[in-house]
């Protein structure tokens, strides 16, 4: 809450949703989610360093239903943040600024993130033997 309640222009509530807004907001949201997800990476590395028992606990969490849902979510978050991040880097060096390119690249990133997630989880399912 700001110290003084000043009038604000109505923004999110009044604009028609566009792919540019979606990719921008989702990039931030996935960034925050990935920062939180990194805790699991730290725990997994510490477990791998400390011994088989700790590693078994982390493996059990990762293969539990809640762990699987979280890992699936983080896979998609990483896929989106990675692809959209590459789009941002290309824009930083001057590519893709025309509105048509912007909209097209936004859709490529969004659909691509689901394709990349599906590819990774196809490998997971193949290795787990369908479990």
């Amino acid at each position: 809450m700001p110290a003084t309640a000043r009038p604000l222009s109505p923004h999110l509530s009044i604009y028609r949703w566009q792919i540019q807004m979606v990719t921008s907001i989702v990039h931030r949201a996935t960034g925050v989610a990935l920062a939180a997800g990194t805790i699991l990476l730290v725990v997994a590395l510490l477990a791998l360093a400390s011994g088989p028992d700790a590693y078994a606990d982390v493996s059990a969490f990762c293969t539990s239903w809640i762990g699987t849902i979280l890992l699936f979510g983080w896979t998609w978050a990483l896929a989106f943040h990675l692809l959209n991040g590459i789009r941002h880097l290309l824009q930083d060096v001057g590519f893709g600024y025309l509105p048509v390119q912007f909209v097209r690249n936004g859709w490529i990133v969004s659909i691509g993130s689901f394709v990349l997630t599906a590819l990774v989880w196809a490998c997971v399912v193949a290795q787990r033997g369908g479990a």
Partner: protein
Amino acid sequence: MSTQLRTPLKNAVGLGSAKHGVHHFIVQRLTAVALAILSLWFIWTVLTLLHLDYAGAHALIAQPFNAVLMLAFVVAVFWHAQLGLQVVIEDYVHTPGLALLSQVVVKFLCFLGAAASVLAVLRIALGR
């Protein structure tokens, strides 16, 4: 009318641009490029770990190639995360005390996360 936009105090103190205005932007991009490359290795490594037992997983990360890339990955991840979370807090947390507190907490947690990860990778690579 004065054409001087700086205050007299500003001129007296002599503080102006220190040429570091784009430092955050540059480091965010630098770590992003590193992570774009390292993420592909990371995804590949995690998929390889899935069908390994503890000893196999330990041996895989202990290999110098993987240990070095894992060190680079965790350092780049926490550096990038800390820069990104800083901007999110700047944009959405407007209460002065809470804004400062959350910035400090994020920086501390990111450093602790990076330090713990580095220690773990070093123990895996050098220990036993």
